[in-house]
């Protein structure tokens, strides 16, 4: 369930005017910006953006970027973008930064196949190249094969599963992990082509047959980027909410909070399943996510995140 609180009735023009007023003069009325944008869903934000540009003949994003700053600005910018476009931007940033496989894996594995398609189209429109070609040209070896396949696959999205296959592929995975993953081929094949339903069946069978969960078994190996990406993929494909809870927990607990990760999860899930992720967080940490975020962040950035988390004003 979404954590975002947005009214059913609203006026895009009135909101655009209110935002213009918030930008007016020296400094910005950040509270005003949060009060509006923090309480509008994707469709509503799109209409406000359009109304603003029509009425004031100025680039809404550029105005936001000049009025706001720091983590707050980054968060609002991502929030305002159309969800598919946002994901395209996040992936592009991840590609350029080293690249960070985690974001690419997350995006391609959590999404339903049709939604992934929409993101890829948005990417092509924005960057005039395909996501696959950019990922491929910035990576190499197994990581490249893995990421390009994850992003390229159009998984069967039905519920049909083959139990025999689940068993045999669980065994294949087990063997590959025990042999220290010297050959990644089969693991890559299974993770990047099987349907989510099939993978869940495989994962369930893995635990039954080998006494240890697939995730834990993969995590046993000394940390290396590729294995880490494999593990992320499995978690995102089979238990995305628990995955996000962990990302949040790690982002908050680490020395010098990882704002990028915090922003990414909250902004991308606020309209999807952040409520359930909050529940998981509380169960795991005995403190609410709101309280944890309030403790580790400050200023307008904090206020904005809390608003998206569903804090009642």
């Amino acid at each position, binding site marked *: 369930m979404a954590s975002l609180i947005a009214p059913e009735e609203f006026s895009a023009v009135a909101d655009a005017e209110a935002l213009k007023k918030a930008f007016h003069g020296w400094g910005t009325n950040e509270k005003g910006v949060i009060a509006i944008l923090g309480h509008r869903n994707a469709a509503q934000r799109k209409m406000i953006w359009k109304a603003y540009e029509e009425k004031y003949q100025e680039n809404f994003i550029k105005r936001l970027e000049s009025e706001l700053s720091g983590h707050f600005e980054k968060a609002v910018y991502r929030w305002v973008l159309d969800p598919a476009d946002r994901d395209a931007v996040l992936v592009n940033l991840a590609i350029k930064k080293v690249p960070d496989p985690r974001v690419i894996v997350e995006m391609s594995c959590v999404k339903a196949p049709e939604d992934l*398609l929409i993101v*890829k189209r948005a990417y*092509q429109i924005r960057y*005039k*190249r*395909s996501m*696959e*070609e950019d990922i*491929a*040209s910035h990576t*190499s*070896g197994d990581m*490249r*094969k893995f990421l*390009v*396949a994850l992003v*390229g*696959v*159009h*998984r*069967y*999205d*039905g519920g*049909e599963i083959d139990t025999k296959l689940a068993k045999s592929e669980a065994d294949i995975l087990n063997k590959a992990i025990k042999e220290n993953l010297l050959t990644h081929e089969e693991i890559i*094949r299974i993770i*990047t*082509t*099987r*349907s989510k339903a099939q993978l869940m069946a495989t994962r369930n069978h893995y635990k039954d047959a080998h006494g240890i969960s697939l995730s834990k078994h993969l995590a046993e190996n000394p940390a290396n980027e590729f294995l880490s990406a494999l593990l992320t993929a499995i978690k995102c494909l089979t238990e995305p909410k628990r995955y996000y809870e962990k990302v949040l927990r790690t982002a908050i607990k680490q020395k010098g909070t990882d704002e990028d990760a915090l922003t990414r999860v909250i902004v991308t899930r606020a309209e999807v399943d952040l409520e359930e992720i909050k529940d998981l967080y509380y169960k795991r940490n005995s403190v609410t996510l709101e309280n944890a975020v309030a403790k580790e962040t400050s200023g307008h950035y904090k206020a904005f995140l809390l608003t998206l988390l569903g804090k009642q004003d």
Partner: protein
Amino acid sequence: MANTEEQLEALTSAFSGLGVDEKILISVLGKANADDRKSYRKGIQFFAEDDRSFEKWEDDHVQQLEREFSRFKNAMVYWTMHPWERDARMAKNALLKGAQSYNVIAEIACTRSSEELLGARKAYHSLYDHSIEEDLAVNVSGPECKLLVALVSAYRYEGSKVNEETAKSEAKIFCNAVKDASKNPVEDEEVIRILTTRSKLHISTLYKHYKEICGNSMDEDLDKESLLKVTVQCLSTPEAYFSKALDDALNGEAEEHTKDALTRVIVTQADANLQKITEEYHHKYRVNISDKIDEEVNGNYKDFLLTVLARGR
């Protein structure tokens, strides 16, 4: 009573080549009584006197006729089908037939638009409850596997923007890979990356630069029967590829899977590229494809093909 010599010739020709001549078969055999039919059997080359005193039909030919009688049926079924279902079924059949037919999979993946290929992949889900990616990954062995899975997963950018410098440098990469005697270019990571992620316009540009950089054209440098060559041709010079496929199919000595190209190319390209393909055919082989088909093909199957070719003229 009509001239038996003539009738024997007519029957022989009705039973030879691509398709069968239904009209002749009906008019000659339909009128024939038991004695007539016996005398035909004694006169036509497809029968041989058996030790047990009967004119036995050559088994190969009987099997051949099953295929020839079905050619019209297959053409009509494929022609009427939704293109997505058609492509999905053709890909599946090619996969079942094995390595000799992998070119069909590459052909489909490379000559359809991004949305058409996507549609075919979705249709594949509906027909077979699996993604084509997973079926290929499991059933295709050897280095061609990676190429095919990646080709089929591609969702290429189709806009007009091309980076000339990148195309040039990637032509050089290709050239080096081809010249590297120690390795089959289809096993080269960079070759796969370029062919399976870049836009068709980019690859055509690369194709042009290749000749300047490498001396020969890509056609000349790539192994004649290889999947890599099929891939490059389908992506950069599809009309040349298709016209050759048609010519090979109409060659009397062609193997079964080669003959199948006649239906496949005409049916799948009729609404796309057929005009250009027939022009290319005329340019290369100095004969109209309609004339060639008139010579080599029989009956309803022939009439159907010629009708399709004549559309829109």
